[in-house]
Each structure stands twice: as C-alpha cells, then as structure tokens.
C-alpha cells in the first residue's frame, strides 16, 4: 500500500513510522528538512522536502495513485488543499485532511472530504473524561457526498467512505 | 450661578450613552454644566450592527431595551430640569458613528462615560471606542470615569 503523508510533525512522523513498520510504502513531505529529524533513523521510507500543496512537488515525490493520503500539516487550509489536490489530480483512493477549525472540518466533510478535527476530538474526549455528555461525533468526519472532482473515480471514493464511518 | 467671567465650556454637546450605569451620571453632569450657558445637549446611543445584518436592518427601532436607554436619558435630563435631544444610530463601529454624529451636529463637546466593570476582577475596560473618539473627534472630549465602588476598592 502506498501511503502519502504531508506534514512531518509529531503525528506525521509517528504515523510514517507505523505505516512503514506495517510494511507499507511511505512517502512523507514537509517544507523543512528539519522536520524529518523527528523520524527514527531506521526510517526507510521516502522523505521529500517540498510544499504539499504543489501538484508538481507531489507528482515528483510519487504521490500519484497512492492508496492513502494524509494531510497533517499545521495549516488547515494547506491540508485541505493538499487533500483536494490528491483527490482531484493525483487519483488517490483514500484521503484524509486534518482540519482543526470545527466549522471547516464539518464543511469539508459535507463537501466530500474526510476530515479529522483535533478540536472536536479533544473536546469530546475531555468532556467524556469529565463525565459530561458529548456531541457523539465520529472521530473522523466522513465525506457526506462525492467530492466535486471525484466523479471520475467514484468507485474508489466510496469504499474510502465506508471504513471511516465505522 | 452663571458667571460671565467664566469661559463657556460648550455650546452643544453630544452625550454618548452606552446603556450602562454611567449614562445617568454623564447626563446629569452634562445637564448641570449646560444649564450655565443654556447649551444644547444631544444624547446619542449607537447600536452596533454586526456584519451578518445589513446596516439599515430594522433592529434598534424595535428593541425596547435600546429605546429605554434614550428614554432613561431623557428622563434623567428632565429630573435635572433640562432638555436633551435623543438620537438613535445604527452603525458598524460606535466610535466612528459618535465622531461622525458629533461632526454633523456641530458639537463642541463629546462626553463619554467609562463604567467600572465588576466582572473579571473589576477594572475599567477602555475598549476601542474611547481611544477612537479621543483620536478622531472634531471637538473636545470628556471621558467621565465612574468611581470605584467601595467594597472592591
């Protein structure tokens, strides 16, 4: 399985290692090389310096036709744009964008992009921890419809939605 | 007592109401000062309209609370046996509206109240209106600060 991770932060690095250990082909991108220090020295995947929102960079890194695309930078909008690029131009099967603004997270799930919202996650988790009732939101907001550019590979988009709903 | 020696402080003052506890204080003060020179008083209350509504949305005209701010000012003035002309405005920014209104009314004094805020530990939140007015007003500006209540002083 080819996994593309945009943003080599704490989460990105941990995931890269985990995917790699599980025997996947991992490509990780970040705008700064310093970010790759977070990766273990044993990491043998492909670490590429470059902007994840630039189609050319992604193609050069080999992100095309990846099975999983995770946009995990600190910028919500960068994540969204990278994820949309992946869906629209790179023919990626399963795309997830981290969007910390709850409004945008919900809006893009509505638009057909799977999103994960740290704000929502922490809110729900902490409220649950404190014994309060939570909004009962799924951890990953599944796309509510096909992405505007996703018509031509609907077949891939639909299985992508199913697991995240579960 | 009118004292001809004394210089006229203002001939026409705009009294800015914010609906808080300082309104009555500044109206009373304004009426007391204005009486000496038979100066005119204009009470202005600006309702800030956020951008989700058009500026001329029918908001302030229907709100009893908003009307009451001006009504109370009128009443306070009458208690001091003085007349105050009430003006109700809707604007995006209170400071700008006050300055513009003072300009249009040819006011030579703008009086604002700075209420003591009991919440958040008690302080004077100057906010953005007073600095704006101080910076942009065409006339003299009085900012009347409330005294700090006894128990929290």
């Amino acid at each position, binding site marked *: 399985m080819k996994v593309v991770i945009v943003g080599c932060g704490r989460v990105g690095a941990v995931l890269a290692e985990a995917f790699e250990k599980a025997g996947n082909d991992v490509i990780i991108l970040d705008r700064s090389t310093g970010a790759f220090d977070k990766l273990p020295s044993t990491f043998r995947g492909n670490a590429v310096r470059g902007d994840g929102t630039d189609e050319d960079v992604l193609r050069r890194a080999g992100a095309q036709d990846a099975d999983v695309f995770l946009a995990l930078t600190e910028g919500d909008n960068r994540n969204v744009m990278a994820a949309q690029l992946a869906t629209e131009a790179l023919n990626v099967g399963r795309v997830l964008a981290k969007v910390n603004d709850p409004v945008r997270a919900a809006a893009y799930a509505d638009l057909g992009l799977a999103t994960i919202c740290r704000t929502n996650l922490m809110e729900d988790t902490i409220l649950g921890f404190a014994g309060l009732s939570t909004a009962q939101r799924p951890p990953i907001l599944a796309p509510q419809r096909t992405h505007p550019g996703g018509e031509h590979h609907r077949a891939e988009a639909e299985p992508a939605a199913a697991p995240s709903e579960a | 007592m009118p004292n001809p020696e004394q210089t006229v402080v203002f001939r026409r003052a705009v009294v800015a109401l914010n609906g808080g506890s300082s309104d009555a204080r500044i109206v009373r003060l304004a009426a007391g000062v204005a009486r000496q020179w038979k100066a005119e008083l204009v009470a202005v209350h600006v309702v800030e309209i956020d951008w989700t509504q058009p500026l001329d949305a029918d908001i302030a005209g229907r709100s009893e609370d908003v009307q009451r701010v001006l*009504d109370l000012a009128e009443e306070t003035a009458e208690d001091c046996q003085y007349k105050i002309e009430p003006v109700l405005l809707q604007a995006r920014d209170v400071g700008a509206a006050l*300055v513009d209104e003072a300009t249009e009314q040819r006011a030579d004094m703008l009086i604002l109240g700075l209420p003591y805020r009991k919440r958040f530990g008690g302080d004077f939140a100057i906010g953005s209106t007073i600095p704006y007015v101080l910076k942009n007003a065409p006339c003299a500006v009085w900012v009347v600060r409330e005294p700090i209540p006894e128990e929290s002083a």
Partner: protein
Amino acid sequence: MIGGRRPLKGRKLADRRVRIERPHAAYFRWSGPGQLTAKESASRPTTPLGRLWARVKAAVIGRPLASEDEIGERLSKKKALAIFSSDAISSSAYATEEILRVLILGGAAALVLGLQVSIAIAVLLIAVAISYRQVCLAYPTGGGSYSVSKRNFGRGASLVAASALLIDYVMTVAVSTSSAVEQITSAVPALIDERVLIGVAAIALITIGNLRGIREAGNIFAVPTYLFLGSALLMIGIGVYRIVILGEHGAYDPNQLIRQTGETAEGVGLLLLVRAFAAGAVALTGTEAIATGVPAFKPPEARNAATTLAIMAALLGTLFIGITFVAVNFGITHLELPEQQTVISQVARRTYGDGTIPFFLFQSFTAVLLFLAANTSFNAFPRLLAILAKDGFMPRQFALRGDRLAFSYGIIVLATVAAGLVILFRGETHLLIPLYAVGVFIDFTISQAGMIRHWLRERTPGWRRRLTINTFGCVLTAIVAVVVTTAKAPQSLLVLLLIPCLVGLMRFIHRQYDAQAEELRVRDDTVIAGPHREQRVVVPINGINRAVVQALNFARTVSGDVRAVFVTDDEAEGEELRARWERQFPGLPLVIVESPYRAVVSPVVAYLDVLDQAWPPDKEAPITIVVLPEYVARHWWDRVLYNQTARRMKAALVGREHTVIADVPYRRSH
C-alpha cells in the same frame, strides 16, 4: 428615509450610520421591562370637540401638569405663618363686630364690656393654641382632627370630626368672602347692591385659581398677610396712642344705637355676655390649620410648626384685643343706616381719616386677606375630601387629581356650596356667623379628646403635664362648644343636624364601596384558569349588509353556536331573506321572528328567554353573547339616523343575567 431609518455617511470613505426615528418617543417612555409611561401627548384628546374643550380648559386653568411636577416646597416659618394663619388672623376683621352686634342689645353700658369679652376669648385662644402645640409635636405627619381622632377613637369620632371640618371649611369660604365684600362696600358704599355678585365672582376667581393649582402661592399669600398685619398693628398703635395719650374718646350715642337696632336696650345680663362671647369665638376659627399642615414645614417640622402656632396666636390675640379696645373707646359699633359699615372699617376711618389713602389701602388689604382666608379652605377642603375618598367615605372622584394636580372635584363642590350660601344669606356675614364656629369647637373638642387618649396610651416623657394641658383644652373647648351652640340657637342646631347627616352619608358610601369590593374580590391564592362556561351567540340582524356580515364573522370566532335573529312584521320579507340567507350563509341558523305587533326589541329579548329555558336545567347556564352590528356614522350630526334600535336593545339587555353585549361597529374604511 425608509421605515424611519435615515442612512448617513461619515467622514471616512466607508463609515456609514443609520439614524433611527423613534415612533414611540412622542407618546411613551419605556421605563422598565414591559412598562411604559405615557407622556402628555398620549393623553391629548384626538377628537376635534375634545381638542376644543382641552384648549378652553388650558386657557382657563393652564396646561396639564405631570404628577412629578408637584412642588414639594417646604415652608419657612415666615411663609408658613402667612399661608396658614390668613384664616385665623382674618377673623379679627369680623370677630369684634360680632361681639358688638350682640352687646348692642344691652345698650351703651354693655358695649363697653366688649373689651372684657374679647380678653376672655383671647384667653381661650391661648388655651387652644397651647393645646394645639401638643398636637403639632405629637403628630408631625399632620394632625388634622380627622387623623388624630381616627387614630385614637376610630371611625365614629373621626367621621364626626371630618363632617364638622367639612362644614367649617365651607363656612370659612362663605364668611370670609362675605366679610371681604363688606369691607369693600364699607369703603365704597356705591357697591352695596352688588355685594352678592361680587362675592360669587370672588369665589369663582378663587376657584379658577385653585383649579390652576396655585401651589407657588407662598409669596402671593405672604404679601397681603404681612401688609394687613402691618397696617392693622399701625392702626391699633395710632388708636391706642390717641386714646391713652391724647385721651380721645368717643361715647356711644344711645339714639344712634336705637336707630341701629330698632329696639331699646334690654340691660346687661349674663346671657348677653355669654352670647357675645359665643359670637366672638369665631376669632378662633382657623387656629387648627397649622397643626394640619405640619409636614409642609422645613425641618424640624414639629418644632417650627409649634413656634409658628405660638406666633400666630400672639398676633391674633393682639389684633383682636387691640381692635376691640380701639372700637369700644371710640364708641364704634356697626352701622346699618344710613350706610352699612363694618366695625373695622370705621376703626380704620377713625384712625387713618375718612377717604384717605391709608384708609383705602387698609380696607383693600383686609379684603384681600379675607379672600386669601377663603382660599385656605380651597386647599384644605379638597384634601380632606381626598383623604376621606381614599378611606372609602366619599366618592372616589374626590381622590383624583385634575390636570393641574388639584383635587378638581372637591374644589368645585366647595365653590358651589359656598357660593350657594353667599347667595342664600345675601352676602351678610353676621347672618352666616351663627352657623360658623360651631363646627370649629366640636372639632377642637374631638381632637383634644384624641390627644388625651394619645397621652394616656403613649406615656412619653412629660406626658402628665401634656395630658393636663390637653384635658384643660378639651374641657374648655367642650364648654365653649356647648355655649356657642346654645347661644347661637336655633341656627347652630342646623349644623348639629347636618353633622349626623354627613356622617350617615359617609357611612353609607363606605358600606357601598365595601360591599362592591367584597363582591369583586378575588382570592389572592387562586390561579385563574380559562373559561369553563359554554358560550353561544345571538346576532339580531336587520337584513344582509356589510355591518351584519362583519358582526356574523366576529360571532363565529367567539363560539360555534351562532344564530341570527331577524324580527319582521312582513312575512314575505322574511321568506325573501331566508332564501337569500341560505344561499349566502349556508349552515348558519337563522331564526325569523314574526312580530305582528311591530315590536323589535322585545321579541328578541323574549327569544333569548326561550333559549335560556330550553337549556338543560342540570347544566350550568351558558353565557349568551348578543352581538349587535352597528353602523358608525361619519359625522356626529347624522348619528341620530342610525343605531336607535341597537341602543334600545342594549338598554333592554344591560341588566340581563348571563348575557354579554358586544358591539361590532362597521366603519367606513376611508
């Protein structure tokens, strides 16, 4: 400008603001959540006739005042003395005359005793004044005899006191006005035939003044009072100087006396002296005014009032004795012939010189002061009525303040009664006097008795001394009350008769209000649920027209049980209507009542009776709503053309039980 909103541009390119018109601001003021205060313009009349009336009223009595405009002016001792004592001090203008009028019957020898009688009255005055000082101190909230007796004795005594006071206030107006007019006619004898007219006109003027609410009266009162005081004291001074130092003396001319009385002297008896004393006791009227008005004083109210009372008593005593002394020594008594002359005017004439400017000035001061004395009653009488009305002893209207904050109804009642008395007694003071003073002494007695109760109950420090003073005062005034009443019989008995009548009236009114309140009372712990009685509607119609359609539409919103009733004396007309009805109001019952005797209203009423009887007796009777279509005429003058039947219908139904009458007016839309 759209919907009362005017867009405006600011100095900076993008600054905009919108000025909002406030449609309510002309009429109301939002004074709290869900709370409005009406401004003057909200109570402005809207019809042309109403506006005209309001304009006339404004011209005569001034523009309306808001309740908070009442000036709670506190009075200094100087002003209070002028305001409260004009009544008391003015009585010195006629008290001497009243004594001499009685003593004249005893001839010249008796007349000389006038001074002694006046001294006796002055002693009484001192006693009463001291007693009333106690009232001032004990009741700083205003110790009218009504409130004192109410607190100490309860309803019965307080009502007697109130009645006596009411009578007295009316008498004050009548006597003071008449006396004032007499002072004028004494100075200008040509006016003698117009005196009733002058008196009534004066009362009318005072009435208008009071309806305007002359509360700013402090100065108006002070000036004439002090002018009179000054000139009277000067007059006494001159008189005493001439009598004591220059030894001037005037003797009574027996022939003159006989000419005045038309009979011979009857000799000086004790009875005569007592009657003279009773007549002179009018000097005490108005003494209680200060005790009633304690709250109007500057603080310390009670002490200031007490001091003012003492000053007033001293002044009154001096004036009274002084005038009597001068009159007696100059041999002055009242003259009926050839011209009517009051004693005080003759004293003035004698001291200041006939036709001199000081004489005329003094006469006018005296007249003005007497009018002001009448005016004090215009303040006190409506106030007492208002208190009584609040307590439920008088019709509620008396408690309502007019546009100018004055108790208009009370003022008008007082003016009417007093003017009636002036007309009835042809404006002659001495005819009115027997009715006067009786009430005053009854009042004094009751309030002093109340004070006795007060001290016995309170037992504040020094109560024994105070109790003694008030007991003395009470006994003295009681004796005087009896003396005055008997001496002035039979006229005084009229007052004695009137008091129980008034008390009875007030009790009756109170009972009515009580009964009504009991009838309308709602237990304050009941939660009022919705209606539970059935309703049905009956609409009497006169055909099918817009007014009827509107009434029927309204009726159908009120109840599902609606029926129209059409009364006709023409069978064919009925049939025609039914045909049209079934076409235009399908499913709505129409009852056609044929009325061969051409009555319209009574068949409808009878039909309602039948409906009621048809109702199952075991169910609660329903509410029958009679909806009357009413055409509203465009002008007042063509109103007479319409709705006469509706009016008669209303009159016939107004007392009917379980029946509600609803008018549905049809107004033309333009």
